[in-house]
């Protein structure tokens, strides 16, 4: 046997990995990405500046915030990996174990836990979910007991009582509630809107109340159930939703309670107490302080912009930044909000657009190589720009809808849970593959959650903004009192909705 020196590699195995961009269509020529796990989206200004530096050195000065509060860098070369991992180690970061694509049902890890980005500072917060998120993250990272699950496992923790973490698309969601004067969590389980079997599912409320001190054990026990009982025969059947679909929720709760050694209290109250994505500038529970949520339209930042934001966090906040699950960034603990807003405007960060700029999401389809131009983020910018010219921002905000754009059928940006979902696909036209989009309507999470329906297929990209405009004009003319866009869409047949996409009837 010949020994090869691997100590420097071994210390990173299980803590760091690279993901894979590209296939022949990828126009960016990026082969690998790095998904920096930022637990709960909490990051210091110093860490943010160091990530900006990594982006400058390895990623053409470019970074993007993901919908699980991670930061992704592209154009990463394998031969630079150890150097990058060393820097991340010093910063205290790790990565998800993405880049797997193993054929079998193996090597699944616990992904970055999505946590309310204003934990500890939101007015009227039910309970601060940050400590639980941190404790679970510390348990799972690099832990060999949880590095070989049938598939990945996704958690969310919302302490503010709203659906800001998109609880319903997680394998296990903990949402803070009140029961008879006591605070705790209620659970939702089995969410995943990807294509693996049994198909897209929204997480279901389990009707239980978990005291804060019990929540860690409940979360770990649930992960162990996924690990020990999840399907190992077929990768398509290896997500937690398949197990729950087969067992039923009653059996799952019995097994969970068996592991915990106690019966969980019941809960039949509301899951979400309010609707909020924490957009804009909001007063904190700490008197005189505000948090400033900056919309990033696709979560993309240059290195210089990252440094500017880090500096603003130091100058106007307390040096903290928080990444949100809708790819935006928050500077908390701000006193001089008006001055900060002026400085942000001067740096190209405007908070004067419609709420769409905060709430909508698009995938990085230009990197994964499964799509052609116009890519998801281009389409989104075009649509928002068009809508903001056609309607007042106040009216768009009042309509309160979300647009999610995914470049391909992988659905990475969860088109199924948006009021207006755009799902890209390549179609052959005149012998060439061109990018088109299916339009899905009526999806959403939170109160009255639902999966969107496909209303029109293979729409050329340049027609999308007009169709969305026509739909909104029909909605404004024909909605009932207090009816949301989601409710309006779900009240009509697919055929009727298709007619609304194609004409205002004038």
């Amino acid at each position, binding site marked *: *046997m010949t020994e090869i020196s*691997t100590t420097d*590699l071994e210390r990173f195995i299980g803590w760091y990995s690279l993901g894979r961009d590209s296939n022949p269509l990828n126009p960016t020529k990026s082969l690998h990405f790095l998904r920096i796990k930022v637990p709960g989206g909490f990051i210091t200004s110093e860490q943010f500046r160091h990530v900006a530096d990594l982006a400058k050195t390895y990623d053409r000065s470019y970074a993007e915030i993901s919908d699980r509060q991670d930061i992704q860098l592209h154009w990463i070369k394998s*031969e630079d990996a150890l150097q990058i991992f060393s820097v991340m180690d010093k910063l205290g970061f790790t990565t998800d174990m993405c880049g797997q694509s193993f054929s079998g049902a193996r*090597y699944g890890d616990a992904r970055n836990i999505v946590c309310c980005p204003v934990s500890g500072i939101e007015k009227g917060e039910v309970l601060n979910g940050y400590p639980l998120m941190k404790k679970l993250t510390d348990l799972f990272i690099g832990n060999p007991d949880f590095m070989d699950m049938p598939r990945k496992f996704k958690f969310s923790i919302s302490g503010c009582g709203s659906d800001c973490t998109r609880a319903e698309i997680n394998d296990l969601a903990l949402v803070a509630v009140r029961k008879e004067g006591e605070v705790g969590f209620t659970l939702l389980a089995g969410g995943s809107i990807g294509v693996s079997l049994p198909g897209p599912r929204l997480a279901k409320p389990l009707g239980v109340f978990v005291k804060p001190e019990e929540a860690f054990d409940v979360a770990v026990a649930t992960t162990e159930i996924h690990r020990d009982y999840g399907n190992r025969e077929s990768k398509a059947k290896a997500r937690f939703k398949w197990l729950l679909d087969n067992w039923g929720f009653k059996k799952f709760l019995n097994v969970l309670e068996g592991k915990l050694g106690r019966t969980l209290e019941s809960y039949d109250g509301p899951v979400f107490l309010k609707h909020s994505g924490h957009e804009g500038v909001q007063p904190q529970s700490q008197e005189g302080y505000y948090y400033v949520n900056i919309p990033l339209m696709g979560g993309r930042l240059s290195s210089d912009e990252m440094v500017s934001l880090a500096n603003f966090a130091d100058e106007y906040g307390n040096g903290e930044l928080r990444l949100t699950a809708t790819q935006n960034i928050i500077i908390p603990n701000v006193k001089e909000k008006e001055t900060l807003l002026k400085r942000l405007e001067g740096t190209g960060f405007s908070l004067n657009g419609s709420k769409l700029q905060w709430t909508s999401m698009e995938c990085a389809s230009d990197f994964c190589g499964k799509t052609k131009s116009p890519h998801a983020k281009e389409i989104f910018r075009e649509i928002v720009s068009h809508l903001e010219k056609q309607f007042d921002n106040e009216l768009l905000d009042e309509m309160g809808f979300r647009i999610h754009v995914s470049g391909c059928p992988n659905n990475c940006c969860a088109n199924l849970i948006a009021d207006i979902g755009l799902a890209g696909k390549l179609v052959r036209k005149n012998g060439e593959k061109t990018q088109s989009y299916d339009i899905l309507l009526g999806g959403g999470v939170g109160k009255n959650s639902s999966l969107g329906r496909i209303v029109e297929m293979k729409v050329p990209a340049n027609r999308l903004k007009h169709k969305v405009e026509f739909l909104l004009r029909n909605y404004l003319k024909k909605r009932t009192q207090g009816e949301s866009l989601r409710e309006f869409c779900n009240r009509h047949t697919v055929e009727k909705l298709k007619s609304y996409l194609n004409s205002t009837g004038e």
Partner: protein
Amino acid sequence: MEKKFNLQKIGEKRYSLDARGLVCPYPQLLAMRALGNLSSGDVLEVVLDNPPSVRDIPPVLKEKGYEVSEAERVEKATWKIVIQIKK
């Protein structure tokens, strides 16, 4: 852990490296590390089960001047890449 990453001699000037269970970029980094320990004319077989690495390793090593076979599927979810250090 160290045992697993040693090169097994499997024949005259022929070695095997087991990189199964490793995610990107480790199979490639280990393969490079292993090749650095071998001599001209030696052959290295890398056994791995991570599909992105299966796609990445051949072009990267070809660019570095090695003779590389296309990945051969040896089991349902396992591949072998054969690399020779040119004489």
